[in-house]
């Protein structure tokens, strides 16, 4: 079996998509979007959470391991980054970011170990351990928080090439660059032999093992890479969006949110991570706007947040029943209808093999 990854190949469609997205990010958005609100409340958290969703996607969508601890790894990444910037003065921010991703990856390997023995709901419980343990550890050992007693720590400024970033637009650009690099990497892995191994394990792990795929390597690799993405996402989330560090921000609710992004966005697709994250972030905003503008505040905030929960829940059930491949598949179908056969060959069908059909 070949072990070195296949290097990225790309088609015309990929280049077109890439160019379109980059133009959108670097030219169109900065020219049209002027208010800080859009950057600080929508675009920045969207990119951060999309990155975390890619991490969740790798372990759940591609490798088929039900994990529910993304927020724990995000917390590990965020606090690692804080401590690295604080304690290692000469380290550039990107270096700190990469290192905190690696620290999160170490946790990923540790808590991914049970996946060698168990799957499904059993694994979910094992990964919950990581969620609760990491948050508790950060909370209880003052060193991680630099012995800050107020509970809320302000993050340091992001310094890149000696210049500290302050405006939301600059942060957005940095995020776009980091997210683009990591997304391309993830797509490369998913399309290459690494991703093929993940998917083989997802579709039938025993069969994959008897074909010579090392379950130990493949699963732990998926957990490590997933946790790396979550760790980097967590650090970025804290440094660019929250601007503060508190373990509570990374509680189990965030893990559920990321899980929903992946399920609704479409399991086993990279673009699903972005679509899902956009939906989970935007829907409450839309709901609040409707609540405030159409009903002029006559609806209680409790009702609005409850509605949000009900809608997410109903959507998950509906998607499980009618479109287990999520919004990414819906998007593909729409594209196909609009552009005809042109886009039909753009996505290899193997990438979206049904996650739901495994096991039993």
């Amino acid at each position, binding site marked *: 079996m070949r072990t070195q990854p296949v290097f990225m190949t790309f088609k015309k469609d990929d280049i077109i998509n890439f160019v379109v997205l980059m133009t959108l990010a670097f030219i169109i958005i900065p020219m049209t979007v002027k208010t800080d609100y859009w950057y600080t409340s929508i675009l920045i958290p969207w990119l951060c959470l999309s990155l975390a969703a890619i991490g969740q996607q790798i372990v759940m969508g591609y490798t088929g391991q039900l994990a529910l601890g993304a927020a724990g790894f995000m917390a590990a990444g965020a606090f690692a980054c804080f401590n690295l910037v604080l304690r290692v003065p000469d380290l550039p921010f990107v270096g700190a970011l990469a290192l905190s991703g690696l620290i999160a990856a170490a946790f990923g390997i540790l808590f991914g170990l049970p996946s060698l023995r168990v799957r499904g709901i059993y694994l979910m*419980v094992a990964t919950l351990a990581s969620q609760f343990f990491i948050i*508790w550890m950060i909370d209880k050992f003052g060193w991680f928080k630099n012995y800050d007693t107020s509970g809320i720590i302000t993050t340091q400024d992001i310094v890149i090439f000696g210049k500290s970033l302050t405006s939301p637009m600059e942060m957005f650009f940095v995020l776009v660059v980091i997210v683009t690099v990591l997304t391309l990497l993830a797509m490369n892995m998913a399309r290459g032999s690494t991703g093929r191994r993940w998917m083989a394990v997802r579709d039938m792990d025993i069969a994959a093992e008897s074909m010579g795929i090392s379950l130990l390597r493949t699963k732990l690799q998926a957990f490590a890479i997933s946790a790396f993405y979550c760790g980097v996402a967590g650090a970025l989330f804290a440094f660019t969006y929250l601007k503060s560090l508190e373990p509570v921000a990374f509680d189990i609710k965030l893990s559920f949110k990321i899980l929903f992004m992946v399920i609704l966005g479409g399991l086993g697709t990279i673009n699903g991570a972005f679509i899902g994250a956009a939906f989970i972030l935007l829907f409450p905003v839309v709901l609040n706007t409707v609540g405030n503008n159409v009903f002029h505040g006559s609806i209680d905030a409790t009702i609005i947040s*409850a*509605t949000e*929960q009900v809608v997410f829940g109903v959507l*998950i*059930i509906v998607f*499980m029943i009618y479109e287990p491949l999520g919004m990414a598949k819906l998007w593909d179908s729409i594209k196909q209808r609009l552009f005809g056969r042109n886009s039909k060959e753009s996505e290899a069908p193997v990438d979206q093999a049904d996650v739901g059909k495994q*096991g039993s």
Partner: protein
Amino acid sequence: MTEFLFFIEVVVGGLLAGTMYSLVALGFVLIYKASSTFNFAQGAMVFFAVLAFVGLMELGLPFVLAFFATVFLMFLVGYFTERLVLKPLMNQSEDTMLMATIGLGFVLEGLAQAAWGVEVRRLDLGIGDFPIPWIADSTGLFISALDLTAGTVSISMIIGLSILFKYTKMGLGLRAVADDAGAASSIGIPLKSIMLMVWTTAGIVALIAGMMWGARAGVQFALVDLALKALPVLIIGGFSSIPGAIVGGLIIGATEKVLEVYIGPFFGGAIEGWAPYVLAIFFLLYRPEGLFGEKIIRRV
């Protein structure tokens, strides 16, 4: 001597608190046994049921009436779940069902909050959370009356349900469905009504668990997180075993308390939050199917 008494007290308190976890776990087991569906929404059902119960009491319904109204509500929840979630997803993989029940849990949590609001409510069952005087006098042990009641209720429910499963025709039908739903329905076992019955029973169990938890900690959203602790209980006891739920609950309850009291102070406390999960991981490494569960056999 007092050292030892204190240890006994911690263990007994832990065991009794553990039976509360068992109650929540019992609901999971019931549904898992009947449909091999892991119902992640059980925690939300606990919250939903007890919130509805307290809400109805606030509307002025007497205790018994509120109880049966809530039971009927849980029957409706079961009915709609069967019709709208389980039936369309029949023959799907366990993972798909699991994700769908996560969705169901969110729906129930949202509905409960929309209907009754988010503030913490007090639930007074007439049983105080204070030490029982005569036990304290005779043995020197401080054991909470509420803990003792919860323990008694859980154990009697578990015995009752075990008898129901083992010796009644309904229980036999249920076990047949659990074994092979297709074969069971082909010999005329009414699949639908069995499912409905199981979900209603799980709803009643959820209500009772919620009442016990609510009387201790108030009826609030945190109940959902507490219910998550039933997961390690299930891992230790096995997903398909009713006695497993109680043994698992006892093990988790006692270990959690002992660790918290004796080891916790060295790490700044609050290790209760993750200790059960880590304990579950160790059990997983040695006995993935749990103490009482059936061995998992997987084929290509």
